């Protein structure tokens, strides 16, 4: 038997939706014979039982990873419903990355289109939040602009202060406010009401945080993501419908919060070139 043929047969049997025993039974005597000709079996462990060990390990390992990474989604969904979701997910979205961490990368979008998610659309949004938090854990590092550094910045530097976000951040737009659901480990927690929400997820030092942001802050964070936002342009943009003093106060409030959160990159030293965006 050629190696490629063996691997194809093994893979088909071990990763099938059903157990190896069911898959072989459905295949008929020819498949059973082929399995017995491929794998050594004995009275203690027949060939099919030996393949079943690998099938169990394949599914259990991946299910456990998903259950750990999506602990809150699984709790909200209920353990009994999480298992069939995982079966469907692994059938549709086979792992294709060398890192185990990527096994669940497509679960939020899969859940959004899955019957379990269609009935409770906030679940996929909760899963997106859990995923975003996970992705921040080992995202790229960056030196941050601290509140202390901001306070000691010479006044003449403020206008041209380049506001850039640290790389380990994400902005999520959700139709439901899933933050209370994330905080609660109670599967019977109240269903979140429809409420379009902008969620900011980021890592400061080694810890991952998230919080809801209002529409104005969300809009400016998106502009910061695109680049070319200086403190002066933030003040000018916030001036629409506000006095100059109120706009400046709001700009200081936002920048102060972002610096306090560890969301802003430290400015490049004078004279150095900015890295490409």
């Amino acid at each position, binding site marked *: 038997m050629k190696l490629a043929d063996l691997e194809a047969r093994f893979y088909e049997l071990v990763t099938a939706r059903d157990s190896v025993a069911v898959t072989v039974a459905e295949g008929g005597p020819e498949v059973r014979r082929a399995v017995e000709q491929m794998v050594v079996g004995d009275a203690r462990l027949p060939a099919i039982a030996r393949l079943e060990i690998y099938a169990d390990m*394949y599914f259990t390992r991946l299910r456990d990873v998903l259950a750990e990474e999506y602990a809150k989604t699984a709790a909200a969904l209920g353990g009994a419903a999480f298992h069939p979701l995982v079966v469907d997910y692994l059938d549709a979205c*086979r792992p294709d990355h060398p890192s185990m961490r990527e096994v669940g990368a497509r679960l939020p979008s899969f859940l959004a289109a899955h019957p379990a998610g269609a009935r409770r659309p906030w679940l996929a949004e909760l899963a997106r939040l859990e995923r975003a938090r996970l992705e921040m854990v080992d995202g790229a590092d960056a030196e941050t602009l601290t509140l202390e550094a901001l306070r000691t910045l010479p006044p003449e530097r403020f206008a041209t202060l380049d506001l850039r976000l640290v790389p380990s951040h994400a902005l999520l737009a959700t139709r439901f406010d899933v933050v209370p659901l994330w905080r609660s480990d109670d599967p019977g927690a109240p269903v979140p009401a429809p409420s379009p929400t902008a969620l900011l997820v980021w890592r400061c030092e080694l810890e991952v945080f998230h919080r809801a942001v209002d529409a104005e802050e969300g809009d400016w964070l998106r502009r910061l993501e695109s680049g070319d936002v200086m403190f002066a342009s933030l003040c000018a943009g916030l001036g629409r419908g506000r006095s100059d003093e109120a706009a400046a106060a709001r700009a200081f409030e936002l920048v102060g919060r972002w610096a306090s959160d560890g969301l802003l990159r430290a400015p490049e030293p004078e004279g150095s070139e900015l890295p490409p965006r």
Partner: protein
Amino acid sequence: MIGRMEGFAALGQGLGLRPPFYEAAATGASSGTAVAAVDWWEVISENFMGEGGNPRRVLRAARARRPIVLHGVSMSLGSTDPLDARYLDRLAALAAEIEPAWISDHLCWSSLGGHRAHDLWPLPFTEEALRHVAARVARVQERLGRRILVENVSSYLTYRHSTMSEPEFLTALAERADCGLLLDVNNVFVSAHNHGFDAVAFLDAIPRERVGQFHLAGHETLPTHLRDTHDRPVCDGVWELYRHAVARFGDVATLLERDDHIPPLDELCAELRHAGEIARASRGGADK
């Protein structure tokens, strides 16, 4: 004295670096003096390939204190899929930064058609598989610019058309690819039980000079088979086999793996010290 391949030093007794030990590894601080018993750390390469955050911080800090070995689970040396060049690039980049004592992965396959199993599936021990794996190990070594160690996996099945034993396959692979071997003593014990071969004869058939590292771990005893679980202490039978391995292969770097039901560091270090005592006894009681 056993002549060992260059590049695989007798590092002493090491531990798999898992999240509960991150701070101890990074700072050298632990309750009591436990962490002092850890001569080196082995990390799962794929868990440290992210760009930043705590894993990379810990790895850099741990490396400043102790030697690090990169142990991979996703090279898929036996797969008929092409080798994953991007994966190898990332591994090479990690190695360039961390400067590990060495790099290892498994004699197995774990991917097909671009899909990943995240498991260690057994290969048939045939001439075709040997040619295939040896060529891939050679390509990996060329890409990484160093010899690697290839580990025997625990297995639950064998194939009817295998034409050689596992030790014969490992020996031929080491010679053809000019690689080293990571001998997992627990895996030998588990597979010997599951397939009914003699574990001591397995060790005796492995060439002395090719073994660069040992693994020790715990397994679960089920009615029909042993299951490699890394979730409990090393059992007496594996310690006995380890004694034989040390007697045959010498004072090889030894790594204790624990992936589940992880106890306090003190408890694992007691096992490490036991491994150290066995190694010392093999030197006639001499310290080094």
